[in-house]
């Protein structure tokens, strides 16, 4: 490849002039093309977290139950009985815009590998999705592809997709968000890490062959490639979930032996980041012979192999005396297995190809002198609290509209394309509870899993929005009776070089940190996705939170479906906060005001009270009050249980549609007891009404049949996507 390495090329590779200068200093000479490639990907925003690291460091990451916080492939928490939950969330936003099916599919594949690389069997997938305006044909095409892609990959690998969330907003028109989360289970004494060790130990490549998939586009677009440019153009990564399934089984089989010293998936920047990180973390050198890399295409250069993002590959350091045991396992699973190098004591990464040294870089400076930016921040101005808004619609008409609007309508059309029962451990399915409940095979213990974020709050007030996202995840887990343990996050923001955007990021982290601390809900893993904007139009700031909780006995979990003969009790204080509410947007046509404040002390007190009532067996159903407010929460409970409810008279639109935080609706046979105990605990609570019948009787006396409500609630997605009445 006849390209001169110079500042212009470095710029094409995404390195600034300063960064390139630093490369020259480290190398003491002009780097080779492959070396420049390695620097550029290792110092990219994606791999180096250069804009976000200073803020991420401030997140609370510790608790007695945290085994591994951020810094490993995934977070690890102790869930009791000698087991650990391993989980993380990761974005695949840009690829999903280019090719929605494959982008989403490979997103799922990538996050699965982050989890099983640590020795955990994946037991659940979730996702957090944001799409543009449903009126656009392009949005429809993206929704279709993303949903098919998530299902296509997850269903095939045999991991149930048990939860997620979807929002629509024009801010995502040119930049949808696809965040995928995987949860796995491991023996807590058998967690596999990526730090390489043992000079001379073999470095082994397993999985699929390497092709030219996803290689950094900038260089490839240049004219130097001549007439074979078409052939060499970087290609979209295509996932092979069948190979991933084999890789899961083969890796877990090998992990039951003592062969593995270190293991790391090949994610973004494939062979480069996996080899650099493994050697770097272990403080050793590494030498690779690329001739031994299994290749799908002919004539690949060292540069291409080091930067390829072919999927379904892993890198391992093995004990030399176990190499043949390992080979036999991978051959049984019909996967490639190749020794491609060994560890050295040089502290350098040396890449050889066809008898040439293509790269020779000292690892310490590559990591330690990676750029780190304290980018300027600008605070989002506080919005004034919304003044009184006249209710011209009435409670009933508003409910009909809200229950059918894209952001609140049933997601059944989506989850019915995801296999959520596989594994036989799904205790609460999508649409049944505020968090999915997945039991641990052969035990009574279960996990509660959820993903949450309300981007419109974050835009209006990033600090409140950051806290709210964490609090909502905590609340959703609590509403099932489970004890929230830890979160993973996916920070999706626009261009960090703009102070306003960096300010959103910083403030969100502040809000998240406060909530994590107040709720004992630390961050154990996460991902940052920046530059989410198209033609200068930024996305809504979206710090998506993936929460995990534990329940000792799965049988204690409650869902939100009503049954007849119960009383409804509201827990938490209601002021009638309409600022940034869905009612304001969908009914009054306004997106404004300060978002509802999050009182973390009240949040904790209310949640601990609710969990206590659930675990004492006094609650038949429980739902947190979120998007859409109280009346929407009750309507969702009625539909989920196919049981009507009669609400007590009184209250205005602000009362019934305000989105005040920290609230739950409980259905119970013992309302008096719940109210008395709430009062004793200093928790606001009041009787809302009672359950039964096939009608929802509203506080103004209006009634809506469940059949009508269901029709409205179920209509939007099937009609929009498949032209099918539900």
């Amino acid at each position, binding site marked *: 490849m006849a390209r001169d390495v110079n500042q212009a090329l470095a710029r094409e590779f995404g390195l600034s002039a300063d960064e390139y200068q630093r490369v020259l200093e480290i190398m003491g000479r002009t780097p080779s093309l492959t070396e420049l490639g390695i620097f550029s990907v290792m110092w990219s925003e994606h791999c180096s977290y250069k804009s976000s690291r200073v803020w991420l460091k401030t997140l609370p990451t510790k608790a007695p139950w945290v085994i591994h916080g951020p810094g490993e492939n995934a977070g690890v928490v102790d869930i009791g009985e000698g087991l650990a939950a391993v989980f993380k969330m990761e974005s695949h936003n840009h690829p999903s815009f280019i090719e929605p099916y494959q982008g989403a599919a490979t997103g799922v594949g990538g996050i699965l590998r982050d989890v099983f690389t640590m020795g955990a069997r994946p037991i659940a997938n979730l996702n957090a999705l944001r799409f543009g305006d449903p009126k656009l044909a392009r949005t429809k095409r993206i929704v279709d592809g993303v949903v098919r892609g998530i299902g296509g990959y997850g269903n095939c690998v045999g991991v149930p997709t048990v939860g997620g969330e979807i929002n629509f907003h024009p801010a995502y028109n040119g930049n949808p968000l696809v965040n995928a989360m995987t949860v796995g289970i491991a023996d807590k004494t058998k967690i596999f890490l990526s730090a390489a060790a043992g000079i001379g130990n073999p470095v082994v490549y397993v999985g*699929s062959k390497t092709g030219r998939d996803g290689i950094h586009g900038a260089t490839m677009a240049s004219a130097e490639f001549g007439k074979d440019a078409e052939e060499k153009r970087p290609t*979209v990564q295509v996932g092979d979930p069948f190979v991933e399934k084999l890789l899961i089984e083969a890796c877990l089989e090998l992990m039951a032996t003592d062969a593995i010293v270190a293991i790391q998936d090949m994610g973004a920047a494939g062979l480069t980041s996996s080899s650099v990180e493994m050697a770097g973390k272990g403080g050793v050198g590494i030498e690779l012979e690329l001739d031994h890399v299994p290749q799908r295409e002919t004539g690949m250069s060292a540069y291409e192999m080091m930067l390829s993002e072919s999927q379904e590959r892993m890198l391992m350091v093995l004990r030399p005396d176990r190499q043949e045991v390992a080979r036999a396992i991978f051959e049984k699973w019909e996967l490639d297995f190749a020794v491609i190098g060994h560890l050295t004591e040089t502290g350098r990464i040396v890449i050889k190809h066809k008898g040439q040294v293509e790269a020779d870089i000292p690892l310490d400076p590559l990591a330690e002198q990676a750029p780190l930016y304290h980018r300027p921040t600008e605070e989002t101005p506080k919005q004034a609290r919304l003044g009184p808004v006249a209710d011209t619609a009435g409670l009933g008409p508003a409910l009909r509209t809200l229950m059918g609007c894209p952001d609140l309508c049933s997601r059944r059309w989506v989850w019915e394309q995801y296999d959520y029962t596989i594994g036989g451990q799904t205790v609460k399915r999508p649409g049944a509870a505020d968090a999915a409940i997945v039991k641990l095979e052969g035990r009574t213990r279960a996990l509660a899993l959820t993903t949450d974020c309300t981007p419109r709050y974050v835009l209006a007030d990033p600090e409140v929005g950051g806290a709210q996202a964490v609090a909502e995840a905590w609340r959703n887990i609590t509403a099932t009776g489970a004890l929230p343990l830890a979160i993973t996050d996916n920070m999706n923001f626009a261009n960090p070089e703009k102070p306003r955007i960096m300010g959103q990021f910083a403030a969100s982290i502040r809000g998240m940190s406060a909530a994590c601390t107040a709720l004992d809900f630390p961050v154990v893993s996460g991902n940052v996705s920046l530059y989410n904007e198209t033609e200068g139009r930024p996305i809504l700031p979206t710090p998506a939170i993936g929460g995990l909780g534990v329940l000792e006995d799965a049988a204690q979990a409650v869902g939100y479906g009503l049954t007849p003969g119960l009383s409804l009790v509201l827990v938490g204080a209601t002021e009638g906060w309409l600022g940034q509410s869905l009612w304001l947007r969908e009914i009054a046509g306004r997106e404004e005001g300060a978002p509802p404040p999050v009182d973390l002390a009240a949040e904790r007190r209310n949640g601990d009270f609710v969990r206590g009532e659930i675990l004492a067996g006094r609650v038949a159903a429980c739902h947190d009050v979120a998007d859409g407010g109280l009346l929407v929460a009750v309507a969702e409970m009625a539909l989920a249980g196919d049981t009507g409810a009669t609400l007590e008279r009184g209250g205005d639109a602000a009362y019934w549609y305000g989105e005040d935080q920290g609230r739950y609706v409980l259905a119970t046979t013992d309302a008096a007891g719940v109210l008395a105990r709430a009062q004793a605990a200093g928790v606001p609570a009041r009787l809302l009404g009672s359950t039964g019948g096939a009608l929802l009787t509203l506080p103004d006396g209006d009634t809506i049949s469940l059949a009508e409500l269901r029709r409205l609630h179920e209509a939007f997605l099937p009609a929009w996507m498949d032209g099918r009445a539900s």
Partner: protein
Amino acid sequence: MKAVVTVMLKNGVLDPQGKAIGQALSGLGFDGVGEVRAGKVIEVELAETDPAKAQAAAEEMARKLLANTVIESFKVEIAA
């Protein structure tokens, strides 16, 4: 007329299906099986009677719907 649109993954794009079929064929004892690529074929009956116009219409269909040109290439043949 009938337009036959053949859609294949572009060169260099991973073809998991082709790969699995190739392995299965070898497993069945077929010798000398090299690369296998799997694609789609869509036959569209057209009212159009002018071959050139039918060709143009089918190409338009392929670009708009039948092929995903991010990862796939296509070929159109017109039969009487």
